């Protein structure tokens, strides 16, 4: 990152970007927060507590329900993926790391790729650790990772926000904005800020210890079954996980033909991997839970993608009604 500027406020940047594209940012209506279209007079209140934004911005790139094509009785007509420019504003480092993973996973998926190409990513560094986050342990935060956002905002309690340009596209997006160059020590200030944020993330020794036990094959099938007994197959963990990508398709009758839709799915459902013959590669709830965690943390996945697919956002901890979130499960594994 070479260019650094000083912003008068976040609104200055958001309003500028809104001239060219729809801006999606954390919004709230009473107690309810989510990523939604920023209105002209709406508050722009950055939320850096992932568990408070359960779905992050994932639905804007990988839609929870999406039409793929229509068969009208004679021909297949592809549903074009939306390609209107969109700004995803105020993404935390962990969620940006997750998007970098989705980019690789969905490389050949025209719907994902179209949405993603149309999206400009604006990240925000975290000022301090959040309740369940362990992004430091997963190399995903608290500072926005290089190359994961087009623009990065760094905030500090008593100073103007700093804007770092993360990509050419980011540079182009702010080209028309009259920006003050940042003071000479901006990069250093950011480094200090991130150091403090990292220090404020509590020590989570069970994460590394749990992963080590998984890798060493030290977690018994009995322990997985003890944990799996509790799993309700609610699909909460996979719904809120920013790197879960499973989907299913169904054909909905339409006119003389049908429309193919895809929905988010969950590998914790028994039916997800059941084969037509009745054979099941993970027939018990414990085996399905094990597969989930191996897929997030295990060595083969790390080797394939160059990193764990878990980004340490901690969302699954609060979404799981059965106390099987990442801290509970790795904690239990580390303690045996």
């Amino acid at each position, binding site marked *: 990152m070479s260019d650094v500027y000083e912003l008068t406020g976040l609104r200055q940047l958001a309003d500028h970007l809104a001239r060219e594209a729809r801006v999606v940012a954390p919004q709230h209506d009473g107690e309810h927060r989510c990523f939604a279209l920023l209105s002209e007079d709406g508050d722009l209140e950055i939320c850096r507590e992932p568990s408070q934004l359960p779905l992050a911005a994932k639905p804007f790139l990988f839609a929870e329900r999406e039409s793929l094509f229509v068969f009208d009785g004679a021909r297949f007509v592809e549903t074009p993926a939306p390609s209107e420019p969109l700004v995803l504003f105020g993404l935390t480092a962990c969620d940006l790391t997750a998007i970098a993973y989705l980019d690789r996973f969905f490389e050949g998926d025209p719907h994902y790729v179209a949405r993603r190409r149309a999206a400009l990513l604006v990240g925000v560094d975290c000022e301090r650790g959040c309740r369940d986050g362990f992004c430091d342990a997963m190399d995903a935060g608290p500072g926005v990772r290089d190359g994961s956002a087009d623009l990065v905002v760094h905030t500090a309690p008593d100073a103007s926000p700093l804007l770092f340009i993360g990509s050419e596209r980011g540079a182009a997006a702010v080209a028309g904005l009259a920006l003050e160059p940042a003071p000479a020590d901006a990069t250093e200030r950011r480094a200090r800020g991130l150091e403090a944020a990292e220090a404020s993330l509590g020590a989570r020794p069970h994460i590394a210890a749990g992963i080590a036990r998984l890798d060493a094959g030290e977690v018994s099938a009995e322990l997985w079954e003890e944990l799996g007994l509790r799993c309700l197959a609610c*699909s909460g963990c996979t719904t809120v996980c920013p790197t879960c990508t499973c989907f299913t398709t169904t054909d909905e009758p339409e006119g003389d033909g049908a429309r193919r839709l895809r929905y988010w799915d969950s590998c914790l459902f028994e039916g997800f991997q059941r084969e037509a013959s009745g054979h099941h590669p993970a027939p018990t709830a414990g085996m399905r839970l094990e597969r989930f965690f191996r897929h997030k943390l295990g060595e083969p996945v790390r080797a394939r993608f160059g990193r764990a697919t878990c980004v340490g956002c901690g969302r699954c901890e609060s979404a799981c009604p059965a106390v099987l979130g990442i801290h509970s499960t790795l904690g239990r594994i580390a303690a045996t």
Partner: protein
Amino acid sequence: MGTLCSVATTCPFCGVGCGMALRTEGTRVVGIEPLPRHRISCGQLCAKGYAAAQGIDPRDRVLRPLLRQGGDFCETSWDDALERVSEALRDAVAELGPAAAGVISCARATNEDNYAAQKFARAVLQTNNVDHCARICHSPSVAGLRQTLGSGAMTNSIDDIERADLIVICGCDPTENHSVLGGRVMAAKLRGARLLVIDPRKTRLARMADLHLQLAPGTNIALLNGLLHIIFARGWQNREFLEARVDGVEAVAEKVRDYDPARVEAITGVPATDLERAARMYTEAEAALLCYGMGITQHTTGTNNVMAVSNLVLAAGQIGRPGTGINPLRGQNNVQGACDMGALPNVYPGYQPVADAAVRAKFASAWGREVASAPGLTSLGMQKAARDSAFRAMIIMGEDPVVTDPDQNQVEAALRALDTLVVFELTLTETAKLADVVLPVASFAEKDGTFTNCERRVQRVRAAVPPPGEARPDWWILGKLARRVAGYEGMAYDGAEAIFDELTSLTPSYSAMSYPRIEQRGGLQWPCDAEHPDGTPYLHAGRFPIGRARMVPLEHQGPAERPDSEYPLWLTTQRLHYHYGCGSMTRKSPLLERETPPGLLFIHPDDAATHGLVQGGGVRVCSRRGVVETRALISDQVPPGLVSMPYHFKEAPSNQLTNDAQDPLTKMPELKACAVRIEALPAEVAPRTRAELAQEAAR
């Protein structure tokens, strides 16, 4: 287009009342997100909750009023449909009097809809023939607990699960049916609370429990009397509490003398040593929270079962404090509200008795219209009267009794015997298929209102999308009918909030509620009145609504039907996490539908072996009342001698088999115990659906 809208509302499925936001795209709900700041669900939902978007998808919805023409339906205008319905209602009343018409309201509908339903019956039709399906889940709770404590609702709050050091789960399966609440129980157990489960089935919580009393079906009173026997014999009762606050103690102590552990072990199959341990755990706990469900209520002794549970709770003094209480887990999202709103033949909103002339006068004057004075019929009563040609016209609001009521064949016969059946529905359910007129209604995602969850918390429901086609809220339809049937303008509301404001003015326990206050407080728990403006997290702190609580001596009485040589197995019914009620909403989710075959019979490995059944194989189940074919799920969830069927599947409806023998007081049918015989279907033969079996019988 991206998903840009998200509206916070309350889950439409079970009585836990989780908060969810509906994510919309145009006029369609495309996804669900949990609400981390929600008072109850704290960012969690169960599989049904996450699948709610598919459940209300406009596909398959009834979009315009439908009229029966021969075997088919044809679409018509609202004007025509309303005119025909009004005429039919007027005719029925003119011919046989107001007793010949009635309304079955709905435990899934909002408080506003339920209030409108009972007002329509009482003020417009001039009848107390109004009921809803609490009859088949918790009417015994209302009847039993009103006698013993003075209130039939859950005494404590869901949060209290965290405050209890012992949790007793009696005849309910909360991780399946009230999953998010069940999750709280698991979390409490992991944090060190003790767990005692009383259930014939080895449920998930039974597997995690410190102690599981696996009693024989229908032996609840014997077991509970047995626990009381031990408690009184050892002097473990809470003397101070009993002296200060309870009547009838002596008579119960006397009665349970007959229930010594050896005799109780013989009746229930529960070892005497376990009875002793359970009695000790419950009386020693600082705070013991007891939950019960349909394993208690769905019996011919339902009301007595409830009172037997209440006896135990009172004897130990585990009530009136945080972390304690007697907590009926209500099945449907708004069954508490439907009862509170007086969608019952014997009470007005707030349980104000129909029999009380002063109450009737209060409502007549507020509504500006005479109200019915003759006692009303229950839903089973209306069905019976219909079969006897004494009842002509029925409105059913969004319930599917053909699938969910016991003894389907009788229900169908009753509905066919009506002159006019009007069904308010989202889709063409099995019940709607029998209707003369089907009126399209708005789903929970398409209307404003309130639901009351199982812990008495009134929460907001908010419209996220407009209703599809010409669908309308139930209260809107009733308002239009009121004008046409009786020229009555008192139900022409301009919105749900106007109804809520009217009902709070007439319902003392809701009197300090309003939409803005509900929103500010994250819901309000009744009683919420001048004395408790912020609601009441637990009931009966200083006194009971009836002053002193009552213990009632009870005798064990087995189920009406027992296994014999011809029908050698017990059949019980259950629910699955993935489905809700008759499945008309949850089964539209491809993910939930994929989880199970359409119909299941849980059977113990030993019984499966005896009958030559294989996992997933076809099985024919026969009772004295009917036949069902389904698939075997071999599991030690059930003990030998007991088989269990979920009731969500119209292909394999357990209600073809169950007994309609009833609790004498509440007419609650015995859905939890009857006798069946089973036979394996040949390997290549697929189970036939109910419709196929019926066709074959006709041939």
